[in-house]
């Protein structure tokens, strides 16, 4: 058993019900510092809801949720949690459509977030350089001044990953990053995430088993709001219960 102090994310006995429907049941999930984890599971398993709980969007009815071993996330709101160092990419790509690609990144860039700091913020060479780097990484340099609304689905996914990079959080929660991407883009994304995981803790939710294999990390399979199976991808995908509820369909 892992000590809470060594974890970046620690969920224990967490439950959430929506109008009596238990979306998360007695869920326990532990992520060590610097670890990358893939989460799989059928639709409605509670994968996104788990991220909602961690990022403060949904309050758990019971259970412990700790960040970095000591911070009780149930006591903080979304903005606080983001500032603590948890970044999130949404299942449905969520970027600011009426702003340009560059402005989206610039807003995400790590900097003080209070009204007056933002009001008197000045562009700096350092910020510009960081944005250039990220644009190159996510291959959107040529769309820098385009409105985010005009990007393709896959490009929006990458822009959102770029925003995560700009935020430079300690923990990244990445919900279905390769939906809508071509095979080549999917492989590229897997490589990008592996590179990110060298310096960050990451949780990736994905249905694309090919992509999960590319990530080459420990896998957790959720089902009906709790952990069904956990271990290497080979271990999990040969688990009879996982085959029954998920892979076998």
């Amino acid at each position: 058993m892992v000590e809470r102090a060594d974890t970046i994310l620690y969920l224990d006995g967490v439950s959430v019900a929506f109008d009596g429907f238990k979306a998360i049941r007695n869920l326990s999930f532990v992520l060590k510092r610097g670890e990358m984890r893939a989460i799989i599971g059928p639709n409605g398993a509670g994968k996104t809801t788990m991220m909602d709980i961690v990022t403060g969007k949904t309050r758990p009815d019971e259970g412990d949720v700790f960040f970095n071993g000591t911070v009780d996330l149930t006591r903080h709101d979304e903005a606080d949690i983001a500032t603590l160092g948890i970044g999130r990419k949404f299942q449905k790509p969520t970027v600011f459509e009426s702003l340009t690609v560059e402005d989206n990144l610039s807003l995400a860039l790590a900097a003080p977030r209070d009204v007056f700091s933002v009001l008197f913020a000045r562009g700096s060479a350092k910020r510009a350089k960081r944005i250039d780097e990220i644009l190159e990484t996510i291959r959107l340099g040529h769309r820098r001044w385009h409105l985010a609304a005009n990007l393709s689905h896959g490009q929006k996914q990458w822009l959102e990953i770029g925003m995560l990079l700009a935020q430079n959080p300690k923990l990244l929660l990445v919900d279905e990053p390769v939906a809508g991407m071509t095979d080549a883009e999917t492989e590229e994304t897997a490589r990008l995430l592996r590179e990110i995981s060298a310096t960050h803790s990451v949780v990736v939710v994905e249905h694309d088993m090919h992509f999960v294999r590319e990530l080459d990390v420990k896998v957790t399979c959720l089902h009906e709001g709790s952990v069904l199976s956990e271990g290497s991808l080979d271990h999990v995908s040969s688990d009879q219960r996982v085959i029954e509820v998920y892979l076998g369909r």
Partner: protein
Amino acid sequence: MISGYLARNGLESRIIATIVLILAAGIAVPVSNLVLDPLHPLHVPTYIVALLGKYLTYALLALALDLVWGFCGILSLGHGAFFALGGYAMGMYLMRQIGTRGVYGDPVMPDFMVFLNWKELPWYWYGFDQFWFAIVMVALVPGVIAFVFGWFAFRSRVTGVYLSIITQAMTYALMLAFFRNDMGFGGNNGLTDFKDILGFDVQADTTRAGLFAASAAALAIGVIVTARITGSHFGKLMIASRDGESRARFLGYRPEMVKLFAFTVSAVMAGVAGALYVPQVGIINPGEFAPANSIEVVVWTAVGGRGTIIGPIIGALLVNGGKSWFTGVLPEYWLFALGGLFVFVTLFLPKGIVGTFQAHIGRGREKRKANRAEDAQTPSGAEVSPVGAE
């Protein structure tokens, strides 16, 4: 000279042109009124100066609304209240300037208080004999009320139509309060019969010309403030909070604070507009708080184009120009015309006049900018291998 200064401060050429135009009008109209012979074809008669001056204050009010509605997505249906509060603050100063020239000749108390048999000036009228104090109150009262209102509304995450409804309720409640005689603001008659402002006769041509110039200057400052706020990094945050309030939270921002700031600044602008309006029309009464007034401001802004800086100014000038003409010809039908105009704009010009116009120009501009970027990027893009390129 002015334009050079503005350009150095990073304002777009379109905004600079607007400011120069406003300031030019602020000089030309008074000069023509005061210097030219009344028979000269370019002479602007005094009643027109006062009318145009009033329009300028409306334009500032529409600009204030646009800051919150166009850029932050807060459809305030109560901005007329901030305008009226600024107007009352100025009206209180003007009342106290009357002094012994009132009907009852009381050196301190305005006529309506003497009439109500009040023995002494209420405490909240203290200080309004000083111009500087009145000016501070013109900004402070609307600002503080907007701050307190916004603090509760935005932090409770009241948005959309619910927020619009409570802003409407706010102005309605204030109207009922100001109608009461015992509030000490002159009841339904309001404040009027002003004599002079800073020692100048409010009826004099020179004073009217001066008030026009002051209104133009205030509008120009309003444009600069709005352009600086919306053109900054903060402006982008305003758009982000408008279009993706929850997304902005997950980036660590607090959209409610962004809105609160914009709402407060906007209320102060509206208050200043009201303060310039009152000496030019010669009266302020609770009718200025009427919910319909606030809705009219929304129509001006929508017609001109919300989310642009020039739009609300053009909208306020056009619609009010139209109103003055229309009420001269077919007074009973003005409200129908206004309603029809709003429906027309909503259906056929959702971006308003300026927004529609800019969308055409802007598309070309974005393309050009993007093309230039592509040209610049392609050669280097081919050499530098992005992460994970094979």
